[in-house]
């Protein structure tokens, strides 16, 4: 069963991206280990109640990113890459940082000021965690 998958209609991103992200999360937290077999496209589509073509697209993109491998007739598995989960978490951070840079550029914030803001944000997070 794949009960914890949830496709949100309030999420503006296409369904195939949401499915990709949730598969990556499973790998990042270690629920799906490198080399482990994952559900067939048709099975996951039925479990999520979405079309086969949508899940197929998610799998194709994940394969292109080297996160899963699909063998004809054998189904799909998590890529047998050691440390894949950690790499995915690292990737997530990189994406957030790039997004920060995009917004900062739009707002005309200089890198030095941005570094200062990052330090401040770090202080705020640390403060909340000690409370």
């Amino acid at each position, binding site marked *: 069963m794949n009960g914890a998958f949830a496709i949100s209609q309030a999420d503006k991103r296409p369904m195939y991206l949401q499915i990709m992200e949730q598969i990556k999360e499973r790998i990042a937290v270690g629920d799906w280990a490198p080399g482990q077999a994952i559900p067939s496209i048709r*099975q996951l*589509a*039925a479990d*999520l*109640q*979405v*079309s086969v*073509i949508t899940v197929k*697209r998610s799998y194709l993109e994940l394969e292109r990113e080297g996160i899963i491998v699909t063998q004809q007739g054998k189904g799909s598995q998590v890529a047998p890459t050691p440390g894949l989960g950690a790499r995915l978490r690292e990737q997530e951070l990189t994406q957030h940082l790039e997004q920060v840079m995009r917004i900062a550029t739009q707002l005309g914030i200089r890198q030095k000021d941005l570094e200062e803001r990052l330090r401040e944000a770090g202080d705020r997070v640390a403060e909340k965690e000690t409370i």
Partner: protein
Amino acid sequence: MTDLAIEMTGVSKRYRYFALDNVHFRVQKGQIMGLIGPNGAGKSTTIRILMGLIRPDSGEVRVLGRRMPAEQVAAKWDIGFASDDMRLYDQLTVGWHMNFIASIYPNWDPAYADVLLKRFGLVAEQKIKGLSHGQRVKAVLLLVLARKPKLLVLDEPTTGLDPVARHEILRELTAVMTDEGRSVLFSSHNTQDVEQISDQITFIDRGRILDSMDKEAYLDRWRRLRLEVPAGVELPALPGVIGVRQEGRLAVATANAFVPDLANEYESRGARVQRIENMTLEEIFVANVEHSREEVEA
């Protein structure tokens, strides 16, 4: 053997106030096709021609490799058809109907029928006349689903159902697709249902097919671009953009053949692209129908 569950080519049918004009589309085996269009677009007429219930003036229809309506008797063993005007016997029970269908169709799956009965919240001993609209719809769907036909043809299966019942139906339809030899065609004006479970989409309006293609590719072609237009800059008319609305310095462009270069093109003409947004099928539906009607009227 053909890989097509449904093939309609050049189908036309003329009535006094309505005409189907050169309707053509295909459904591959193992796929769900969602037929969408506004009220009166021709969805039900298309489905009735498909089922051999109406003879087209011209064109060719093949369902599971059989010509319709000529070979409809043979084809119908493998087709489960449900529509709103399906009559059940008011004075008889749900269970009587189940036994009746089971006696006709050898593929009837009694265990699956019982599962559906529970899932749909129906009681075998209950008479049809005591059922609500939603319960009747579910009873009809139970009768076609438990036959396990190779092709399900459902005219508006979720119309008038509450959200819980709708999800039960969508769940059964997606469960059918774990068997890649089976196919579904369903019509709806609920774009959310179609977006969620269809592999292919066919758009129909005023008796004409506007588009018929792979859902993922289709959704991918449509984008909304939010633009900032500095003073003195005139937005160019670009190919692939079907409409632009501008008020002051902000504009929204709707593209039906989006490519990343489109954003670059706007930038090079002096506009700034603030955001590129995906569109829901509902938004595409409205934009597409309005655009095609403008084109016809122009």
